[in-house]
């Protein structure tokens, strides 16, 4: 596929033409918080040094609140209207680990036999422009390289942008959808041999940093026997039960369905929700099968590295490290994973749930 070359001015021109046609999401700085959000002004574009904004691109493909349908109450309660159709959008400057996080969402929401049409419709009109990051040392809490993802990994992107040392950019066209998006911007020059060689060097160096230290197969096997482990209580000791880890996580995707009614009309919506909240598992009867914080802490890890991996073949964690960075009490997923890896092999007795009271 093609490689285009841009300088700062042509990158701005490209964004201007994209913004005229579609909603562009990109990393912006909002009161000191790097946030992947709607780009309203090109001047707001601010790639974080490590390419990973604190607020993940998740909200562009899985909005915090999404209307499922509108309804009217009455003698014949009816569905009035479907939600508005998805509008074309561009996710511009997505770190490779966040691209893989979107792949997790794609797997979950696209799974047969009940694919999520709302999610898929939005995804079909979403063009992903990946961002290559050549930072040599990533902050300690980022572990995507241990999870097998390189900071120059162009997998699953439609376009891939690599900033070079001379403040120019190389834009790789990887899919037909990416090609079509670029056509909105008119002609762009092809990348020269020097720029291509530089991208190649950065990619090779980034790949060399990928250690794949975290073996998810090992974790999954260990976790399959750790439901009753004492480790969970230790992890949950200091956990305060907020949802910062899950809401900042680029792969956590649980939601709650609620009716928003005004008078006789209303909308049925889904809002972000998380297993870290007590009422997440509360039944309509009032019974709650998961009453302890250690059960909730366990669920989060199990879903990511056991159930999710077992059911979909990909871990529900990409190593972005956001949960570590934002945890108010410094609960560290990496430390937990290390504890799991070093734990004793599962015995017969502590395999699957034994108590129906604690799931």
């Amino acid at each position, binding site marked *: 596929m093609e490689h285009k070359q841009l300088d700062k001015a042509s990158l701005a021109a490209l964004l201007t033409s994209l913004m005229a046609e579609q909603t562009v999401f990109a990393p912006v700085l*909002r*009161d*000191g*918080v790097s*946030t992947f959000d709607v780009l309203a002004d090109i001047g707001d574009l601010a790639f974080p*040094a*490590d390419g990973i904004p*604190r*607020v993940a691109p998740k909200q562009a493909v899985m*909005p*915090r*609140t999404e209307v499922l349908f509108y309804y009217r109450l009455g003698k014949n309660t009816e569905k009035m209207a479907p939600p508005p159709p998805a509008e074309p959008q561009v996710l511009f400057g997505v770190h490779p680990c966040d691209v893989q996080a979107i792949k997790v969402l794609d797997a979950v929401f696209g799974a047969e036999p009940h694919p999520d049409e709302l999610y898929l419709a939005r995804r079909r009109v979403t063009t992903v422009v990946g961002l290559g990051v050549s930072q040599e*040392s990533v*902050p*300690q*809490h980022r572990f995507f390289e241990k999870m097998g993802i390189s900071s120059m990994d162009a997998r699953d992107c439609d376009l891939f942008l690599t900033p070079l040392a001379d403040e120019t950019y190389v834009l790789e066209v990887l899919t037909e959808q990416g090609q079509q998006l670029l056509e909105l911007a008119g002609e762009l020059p092809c990348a020269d041999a020097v720029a291509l060689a530089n991208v190649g060097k950065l990619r090779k160096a980034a790949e060399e940093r990928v250690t794949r230290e975290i073996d998810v197969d090992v974790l999954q096997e260990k976790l399959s026997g750790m439901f009753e482990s004492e480790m969970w209580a230790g992890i949950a*000791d*200091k956990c*305060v*039960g*907020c*949802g*910062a880890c*899950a*809401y*900042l996580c680029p792969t956590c995707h649980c939601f*709650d369905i*609620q009716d*928003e009614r005004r008078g006789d009309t209303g909308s049925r*919506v889904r*809002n*972000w*929700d998380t297993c870290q*909240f*007590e*009422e997440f598992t*509360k039944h309509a009867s009032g019974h709650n099968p998961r009453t302890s914080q250690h059960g909730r802490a366990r669920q989060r890890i199990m879903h990511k590295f056991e159930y999710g991996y077992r059911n979909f073949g990909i871990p529900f964690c990409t190593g972005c490290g956001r949960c*570590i960075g*934002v945890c*108010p*009490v*410094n*609960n*560290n997923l*990496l*430390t937990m994973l290390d504890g799991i890896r070093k734990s004793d092999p599962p015995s017969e007795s502590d395999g699957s749930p034994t108590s129906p009271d604690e799931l």
Partner: protein
Amino acid sequence: MSAETTLREIAADLLGTGKVDVVVGYRRGDGALVATPAFVSDPAEADVLVFDVTCENNLANYLHRLEGRKVAVVVKGCDERSVIGLIQEGQIARDDVVILGTPCSGVIDPEATTALTKGGEVAEAVQEGATLVLRLSSGEEVLGDLCELIHPGCRECSVRNPRHADHLIGDLVDQPSMPDVSPDVTRVEAMPTGKRWEYFQREMGKCILCFACRSVCPACYCNACFTDSSQPKWMSKSSDPSDTMFFHLTRLLHLTGRCTGCGACVRACPVNVDLRLYNDKLRNDVKDVFEFEAGLDPEIPAPLSCFRLDDKDDFIK
């Protein structure tokens, strides 16, 4: 003897003599600039305890869940106010708590240190007077002025020294005099109503309803928070700013006369909502109307739990 040594010795003694079942303190977290809550019940493990400028959590938050056990808790001046508040509100018994008070000149803001080191990994941090010496993994040494590295709320702290400690850990620190009203409150109060409303909407618009503010707040101890009720559903959890506003306004009202200004919510917020401004404003109002400051004096009842004939009542015109 260093404050840390004192802390460890006292903790080991309290545990060893059976005066307490558990010491809630801090241990080193991930990296030199991070401390994390520690629950020590074995005197032999008291050596993990640390106290320095990285100890930002308000550990009074854990007392409620440890109810019924004898607990020693490490508190800064601000955190101690939360302990007093919990005692006053009948949530914990004074006899069940040993207050280990640590004078504090402010805890550091990781965003400020990251900016100072330009993202460089800090291998070691040592406080030398008012200077924080940061030794980076690269070998480089960066000096930071603590006044500039501490959280903005700490700069305006008027309770640097605990007042009700059973054991004082370390020496008392200087307490500069502070303005009655935070300059930020004055600034926002001076805005025309429309601008103030815009500012409020913008701040609330950032909130993602992760409830970290509520979860780290020692005064937010309700077993069932109004946000978690589905029958009736008091509040929706959508991205509509009216929901986030409703949450914060209700929480603020619940905290009126109870918030001690420790800043735990501000530090926990992952999206930097300016919660301090509104908490400060309410605290100023309570001070103004009821001459009350939460958690300072266990003998003075909270304004919403008593009736006083000499209340000013001048808000009723």
